[in-house]
């Protein structure tokens, strides 16, 4: 099976084959013999790849893999060949989140909304204040843009992943 992996600004093709002695992973035409084991029967994995021992927990969010290593958590875009073919065949747009949708990364209560629909904002500008874990957190614009829609009002409780604000690219304004 082939996988398309987006990470660190590049897309790589990774092929996984059954080898004589476990799996073989091919990246950039180099073969890596890999032994994969699940540690607790759950999503904690240990790989022995090229002799090195690597342990991580993996979960999937919106098609991305979120990998927790000992010292870092990384988000990697990943598609298998079949899904990618199907997406391209049906004229699907580019994979990846629209950079101009701001969602709540945590549950909390909206304390204050600082922008109005139609207003133009710049990268890093505070959009609203979300109170969570006894702290007030400023939610900032991830890019320059125009406020297309504000989904929340002060006092409103929001769940993780709830849409807060939609931004349009500034050209469209």
């Amino acid at each position, binding site marked *: *099976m082939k*996988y398309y*992996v987006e*990470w*660190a*600004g*590049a897309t*790589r093709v*990774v092929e*996984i084959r059954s080898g004589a002695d476990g*799996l073989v*992973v091919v*990246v950039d035409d180099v073969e*890596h013999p*890999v032994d*994969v084991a*699940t540690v*607790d029967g*759950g*999503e*904690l*994995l240990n*790989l022995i*790849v090229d002799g090195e021992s*690597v342990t*991580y*927990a*993996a*979960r*999937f969010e919106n098609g991305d*893999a979120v*990998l*927790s*290593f*000992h*010292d*870092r*958590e*990384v988000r*990697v875009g*990943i598609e*298998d060949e079949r899904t990618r073919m199907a997406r391209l065949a049906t004229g699907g747009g580019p994979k990846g989140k629209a950079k101009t949708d701001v969602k709540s*990364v*945590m*549950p*909390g209560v909206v304390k204050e909304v600082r922008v109005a629909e139609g207003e133009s904002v710049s990268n890093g500008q505070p959009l609203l204040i979300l*109170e*969570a*874990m*006894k*702290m*007030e*957190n*400023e939610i*900032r614009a991830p890019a320059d843009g125009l406020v297309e829609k504000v989904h929340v009002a002060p006092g409103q409780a929001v769940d*993780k992943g709830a849409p807060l604000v939609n931004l349009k690219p500034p050209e469209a304004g």
Partner: protein
Amino acid sequence: MTERRPIKKLLVANRGEIAVRIIRAAHEAGIRTVAIYSEADRTSMHVRGAYEAVCVGGPAPGDSYLRVDRILEAAKATGCDAVHPGYGFLAENAEFVEALEAEGIRFIGPPADAIRAMGDKVTARRTVDASGVPVVPGAELADPENETAVKAAAVGVGYPLLVKASAGGGGKGMRLVRDPADLLEAVQRAGSEALTAFGDATVYLERFVEEPRHIEIQVLADEHGNTVAFGERECSVQRRHQKVIEETPSPAVTPELRAEMEQAAVSAAKSCGYVGAGTVEFLLGADGGFYFLEMNTRIQVEHPITELRYGVDLVAWQIKVAEGIPIPFVDAPTVPEGHAIEARICAEDADQGFLPSTGTLGAIQLPGGPGIRCDGHVFSGQEITLYYDNLLLKLIVHAEDRPRAIARLRRALFEVRLPGITTNIPLILRTLDDPRFVSGNYDTSILDDLPGAKDDPEDLVPVIAAALAKHRRVRKTAPPPTPAGSQVSAWVRAGRDWWRRG
């Protein structure tokens, strides 16, 4: 005077890691414990660790852990003769102390008067100033709505300045103001946060010392007039005024400076008739001058590093002091040994502005081996919510010297697994690698300038790891093979699975 008044049953008026810490100390002293809990904490470790447990209300602190009436009722109903408040919540609430005393229940902490003198930072500044301890320029705000008066006070203090909650701690209700234009909003917002967190909106202004180190002195006083200091804790690794890494000794404190600061701390404690464990916080300027910041009239989050270096159990001593036992260290001080560091592992995403992380912990793994201490309340299957502090685990290490302690902490952090939750472990590891931290030459701005995590396109590990995790997932979701010729319908098969799950 030295007659012992043993405590038989202790109510722990807190939650989280400090409640667990206190229960441990009580059980080791042969004291029976009663936990209190909110509805959100039914399965928490402190509830399971105590002998008895009483639910005191809903998840919001104001409905449970801050309810003096219900906690007092629980203490009386369970026959407790003492209450330990931990830190936060009611730890520095003089009315709580008086309410307990009125019922003949001991409060494990200083007298109400000492809490009043030191708990309100404005009064505290006045008190220690009078005893000759250097203080940072500051100003009280009689009426925060009076814009003219607030602006004038700020000019008197001088910019940059901090707006701080009188009742506060832990960075909550605190704002840095460099530009006078931001002053009024900062005062308003700090007051609002302070009201939420501590039930008191009073704030004050304080000159912001540039490039300061945050150094604090641990003191312990008994009711017989003995007060002793146990060196300093270096707490300069902070994000948004919340401590992340603490160490002792401080790389910046010489034996002479330590003696001076210990003396100042003892004076501050004596100036208010202090009894119990407390901490005097100082700012140490780049010029070597130090200024009194505040006195925390409670046990602190970072107390374990002092315990490891000085070989003293401060929580056990809080209990003994409350039992009337005199402290023995005055004439024969404990000999400090080695170097201790604490890292606070929190549920937050440092790469996304320290946004809190919530969810359910999978199978956790905590570090072990020599020189490692874990003070936490985490367990496998725990729900991490937004109701409380996001501190999951204090990882504390002790080793013969600072380089070895750093190496040990790094090794231990690699052993921690808290799956399902994003933590600040990557941030802590990057801090340990930072040349300023390694050299010991850092101040409270260290995290502001810390380089972010970098993805290395040459590193194939995440690429291979993601592909294999996806592959496993794909394999797992493939339908189970049906035995050839099997007449068992899918429905029956599913039914069996359902049965087995019971």
